[in-house]
């Protein structure tokens, strides 16, 4: 199997663009990534396009705008891990020798749903009967608060850290610094989460160009190696299970670290799936950045802030950058690759050499999450 590297990245600023079509959200990010990689259309062997809710054939719609058609284009749906699942497939397409360069797109237009919570599958028993994503995470948070003594103020402080990072990221939707009081005073969405503790949605597009490592220096002066690309699906469980430990992420992280020959202490920077405040804390523990029950302490110590031992979500994460479903996984890779290239300006994690991304996807009965995708990159 051949080694794989990232040679180019592209990103539009997430936000509300109701007048812009999905195709027109996508192509500017494609052009930025191609310019970044120094590739021409003829260099690209295949395109994988992730979308969760964007409808049929998003890849063809985007590339039609640029006249880049006729090549293999495959669209990938895996909920909030669609973009990162597409990166996994793209990596395999290069590792296998089938293609030398693959372009991966994540694209989503959520303003067409007119706000509210992310639409879920109505055939699902729990969704049909009143489940919404904030409440699912809310139930996990409630139980964690019960079992570990986590407070509402500690939950809110995740947002304070997120906004502090986002203030340094021009690509974040929510850049205004906030306070614990302000977070707790925002309106209730699903107890214990107030509005600020829920990621905004919005529209977005992110592009990652993958290349066989042996060819990468022909294009990029700073290619970034894909050290591990791993996908796990959730375990169906109809009985009681511990919702304070995200089983799928614990398992996927263990498998990814094993495949990479690395451990949590080797990671210099990480972008994790902080869809709601409690999620970021539980993922500190799931990745082994701290012991079970110690997440709030790790946050309060400053270890996960910029300048700390293991900065988590330097981009501001989903909580401040926004969460256009399928784009998230690809956008996390854009951030970590740019961090490892030393191109992140005021939010740069100094000396970062190894970075990790983590996107989950859920919203169906019986699963902790349906899917988890973890990638590790290195300089």
């Amino acid at each position, binding site marked *: 199997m051949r080694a794989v590297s990232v040679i180019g990245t592209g990103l539009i600023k997430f936000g509300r663009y109701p007048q812009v079509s999905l195709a027109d959200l996508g192509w500017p990010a494609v052009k930025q990534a191609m310019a970044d990689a120094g590739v021409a259309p003829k260099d690209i062997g295949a395109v994988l396009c992730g979308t969760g809710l964007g409808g049929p054939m998003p890849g063809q719609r985007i590339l039609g705008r640029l006249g880049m058609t006729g090549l293999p284009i495959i669209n990938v749906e895996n909920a909030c891990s669609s973009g990162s699942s597409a990166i996994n497939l793209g990596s395999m397409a290069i590792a296998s020798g089938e293609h030398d360069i693959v372009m991966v797109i994540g694209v989503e237009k959520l303003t067409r749903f007119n706000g*509210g*919570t992310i*639409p879920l599958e109505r*055939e699902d*028993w*729990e969704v*049909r*009967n*009143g*489940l*919404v994503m*904030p*409440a*699912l995470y*809310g*139930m*996990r948070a*409630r*139980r964690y608060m*019960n*079992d570990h003594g986590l407070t509402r103020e500690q939950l809110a402080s995740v947002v304070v850290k997120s906004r502090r990072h986002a203030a340094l990221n021009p690509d974040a939707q929510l850049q205004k610094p906030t306070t614990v009081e302000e977070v707790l005073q925002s*309106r*209730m*969405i*699903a*107890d*214990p989460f107030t509005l600020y503790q829920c990621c905004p949605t919005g529209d977005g597009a992110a592009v990652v160009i993958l290349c066989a490592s042996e060819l990468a220096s022909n294009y990029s002066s700073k290619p970034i190696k894909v050290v591990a690309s791993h996908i796990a699906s959730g375990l*169906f469980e*109809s*009985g*009681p*299970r511990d*919702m304070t430990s995200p089983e799928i992420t614990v398992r996927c992280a263990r498998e990814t670290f094993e495949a990479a020959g690395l451990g949590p202490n080797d990671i210099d920077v990480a972008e994790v799936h902080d869809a709601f405040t409690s999620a970021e804390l539980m993922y500190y523990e799931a990745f082994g950045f701290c012991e079970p029950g110690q997440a709030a302490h790790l946050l309060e110590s400053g270890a996960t802030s910029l300048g700390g031992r293991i900065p988590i979500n330097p981009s501001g994460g989903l909580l401040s950058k926004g969460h256009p479903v399928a784009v998230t996984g690809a956008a996390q890779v854009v951030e970590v690759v740019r961090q490892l290239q030393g191109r992140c300006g005021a939010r740069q994690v100094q000396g970062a050499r190894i970075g990790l991304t983590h996107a989950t996807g859920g919203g169906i*009965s*019986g699963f902790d999450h349906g899917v988890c995708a973890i990638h590790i990159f290195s300089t």
Partner: protein
Amino acid sequence: MESLSQPIIPQANQLLSSDFMRPCGDGIELIGQRCQDCGKTLFPKTGVCPSCRSENVHDQALAQVGTLYSWSVVHVAPKEWRTPYTIGYVDLPDNVRVFAHIGADPQQLRCDMPVKVAAADIGLDENNQPRPFFHFLPA
């Protein structure tokens, strides 16, 4: 090899049918399925066992009393719902966790408290009529 002469007509899991609960005494009981081959109990029933893939499953009445694992009060939901409403997970004997509405004042709720099933209307159906369902109340 198995014969392929018979077409497969899928019919399991009538998802929106009302046969997930029935009267019992002065209340109701929930109806799940029990696998006759491996003993796995499942709610709601699907017609196939997720442990051994057997289709030899029978209706099984579930215990009326369980414990509240966790809950959340929902303030933002799709338009067919009247907010706020409370949902939770209730653990029943037979190794079943049930997604449910919780009928009590949220201030009364505690993790692991005993709760009992009862009939209740929730949300609205396609004709804007209240939909018969169930909720759990402090036992």
